[in-house]
């Protein structure tokens, strides 16, 4: 008879939770809460309409966008793997002009905080896109995709070489006054060196991590499963790796971090914040649980209230020793 009854304790807790401050500043990007939808998993913000809207979360990193439209890679583009999945979408997108004309106004109208994820083949291309975004109202910041493992030129090539990272960031910083946040590749020997190069070039924040370069083989067909042979591994399989990289970078570099990789619940997200992330990105987890971002926000609030903490910012780097 008393299933789900709201008791006094819960009501008190509700009051405490309302006091919790979830706001964070990610290198100049003001977020209402630390939960960010990862690029490539939430389209341009409206594919999950009816389940979760773009204004619900701290920010939306939109699908990686290039100067000109791209058709994307040959299918198959995805395959499930143990505790994860591979993708090789190949940056299919309608190009920056369509984004600015069609998608950005809708996002702005809904009050979403938008982080534009951009990719190019040359530093000049990145700069050109950034320049276009500078003139378009409604963008909070730019995430530089210098780590996409799925395109032949550009992308990851920048992300695995310190000089290239430096060059791209400098070019973009000169083209825009918006906060600039490179998304680094985990496919490197020393992630700290890459992050340090980004800081030196003037990055405002760092996004960690993109997918891990991986593959799968069809043993009946005796060939790679993915049309593009290689793809990026995401999902809970990569969480410990991502967490380690966030921790290392947070210790060595003095920039706010957007941390993520395999977050499936609020506990995972809190781990990332304690490892040094100022905000967390949620990607593959949304495919499994479309309202995961909301669950994570609720879970963070509940954790903070339960530990008598008033601000989510007190979690950032709390576990660093």
């Amino acid at each position: 008879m008393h299933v789900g009854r709201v008791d006094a304790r819960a009501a008190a807790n509700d009051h405490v939770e309302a006091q919790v401050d979830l706001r964070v500043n990610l290198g100049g990007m003001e977020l209402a809460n630390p939960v960010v939808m990862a690029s490539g998993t939430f389209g341009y913000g409206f594919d999950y309409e009816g389940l979760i809207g773009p204004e619900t979360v701290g920010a939306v990193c939109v699908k990686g966008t290039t100067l000109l439209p791209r058709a994307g890679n040959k299918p198959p583009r995805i395959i499930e793997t143990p505790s994860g999945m591979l993708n090789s979408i190949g940056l299919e997108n309608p190009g920056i002009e369509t984004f600015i004309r069609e998608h950005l106004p809708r996002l702005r109208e809904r009050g979403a905080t938008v982080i534009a994820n951009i990719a190019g083949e040359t530093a000049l291309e990145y700069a050109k896109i950034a320049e276009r975004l500078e003139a378009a109202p409604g963008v909070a910041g730019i995430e530089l995709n210098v780590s996409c493992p799925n395109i032949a030129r550009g992308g990851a090539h920048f992300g695995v070489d310190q000089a290239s990272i430096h060059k791209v960031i400098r070019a973009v910083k000169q083209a825009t006054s918006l906060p600039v946040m490179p998304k680094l590749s985990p496919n490197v020997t020393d992630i700290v060196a890459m992050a340090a190069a980004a800081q030196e070039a003037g990055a405002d924040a760092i996004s960690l991590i993109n997918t891990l370069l991986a593959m799968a083989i069809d043993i009946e067909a005796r060939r790679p499963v993915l049309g593009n042979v290689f793809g990026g591994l995401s999902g809970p399989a990569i969480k410990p790796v991502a967490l380690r990289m966030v921790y290392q970078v947070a210790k060595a570099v003095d920039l706010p971090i957007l941390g993520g990789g395999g977050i499936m619940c609020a506990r995972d997200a809190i781990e990332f914040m304690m490892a040094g992330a100022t905000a967390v990105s949620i990607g593959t987890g949304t495919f499994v649980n479309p309202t995961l971002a909301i669950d994570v926000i609720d879970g963070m609030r509940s954790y903070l209230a339960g530990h008598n903490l008033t601000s989510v910012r007190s979690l950032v780097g709390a576990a660093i020793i």
Partner: protein
Amino acid sequence: MGISYHGTQFDRRENPLGLTSVCNEQIELARDTALPIRGIITVFRKNTRPRTSFELARKHVSAEAPNLAVHDDSRQQDCAAGRYVPCLETADVLRHDCVGPGLYELELSAPQVAASAAPGQFVHIHVHPAQPHSPAQPHSPAQPHSPAQPHSPAQPLLRRPFSIYDIDSNAGGSITILYGVRGAGTLLLTNARPGDCLDVMGPLGRGFTLPESQSQSQSQSQSQSQPHSPARSPHALLIGGGLGIAPLVFLARTLARAGCRATVLYGANTASQMQPALLRLQASRAESVRVFTTTLDGSAGLAGIVTDLLTAEPLAAELGDIDSIYTCGPEPMMAAVEQFALARRIRGEMSLETSLACGVGACLGCARRLKAGPGASPVYARVCKDGPVFSFGQVELNPIAYGEE
């Protein structure tokens, strides 16, 4: 009859706890006054929170006060505006039967999906069955500050898409799927027992185009001159291979209800695989749905493949008045059907199957190449959002289907 009517209406905004307490107030009131309460709690949702608020409240209320309806305002507004609105439901398993070799029928209580699903659409199911009533209450005293998920799924990670096979709008609304065990996901799903819960997302994708407007205009014009004659009603040809029959069963039953005639050609490996779908097809109005079968082993119907029926007498002669063709099954089969239709200038559609991640068009993982002139740069469509139903002539078909489960 002297039944007291006590209508209640509430507006609560975005507060799951507030919502639960509204429910409790009403339940309390019903108990204290001993009056039957019929009312509506309207949930205004700016941000949709199906699992933590609406779903829990609905379940809670239906258990405690069946006369009280919880009604989801945002969803209704979206539906009224014709917007594409999938929903998430924690669906009770009503029935789960092994109906053939490695073949299962699963019926789920999913009122919201059942209310809005159209033939050809699919549901995306988290195949980890959960015991009922462990939905993580955010303030459950047992785990006061645990931010963990009720289930932390590891393997298999992704949801699995299933065509909607049948719908029962009586008794609250249920959906049924027909599936075969093909891999880790479907194998895990076989563990779901009646009473367990499954997380269901849907209805998703673009379904079949029904000859609805055509039949309406026809019956209107007919009603003036002559009584509605079945001979003039639209005639659809449905061609299914193997498990591809699943969306066609829902389609055939929908067509029959709409007064259309449906001829179903159904091919499978053996007779035993066909039984469940045949039973459902026969349960439709017999005069408007006719079924012809083929099996590879000859254990039922014509021995051979289903497309043999297109040229076999006496059926072939009867196909002259076909208005539209719908097909689902192995891609070589669908390619043959497409050729048959295009050669005769009959419009038609096919339903494609592939691996999906998001199911809503966000990840672009399920891309299929569209037909284009030689040398044209590739253009891809999303099976989950632009499909799974495509018109004939739209998509490049594969000689062998990739992306099993």
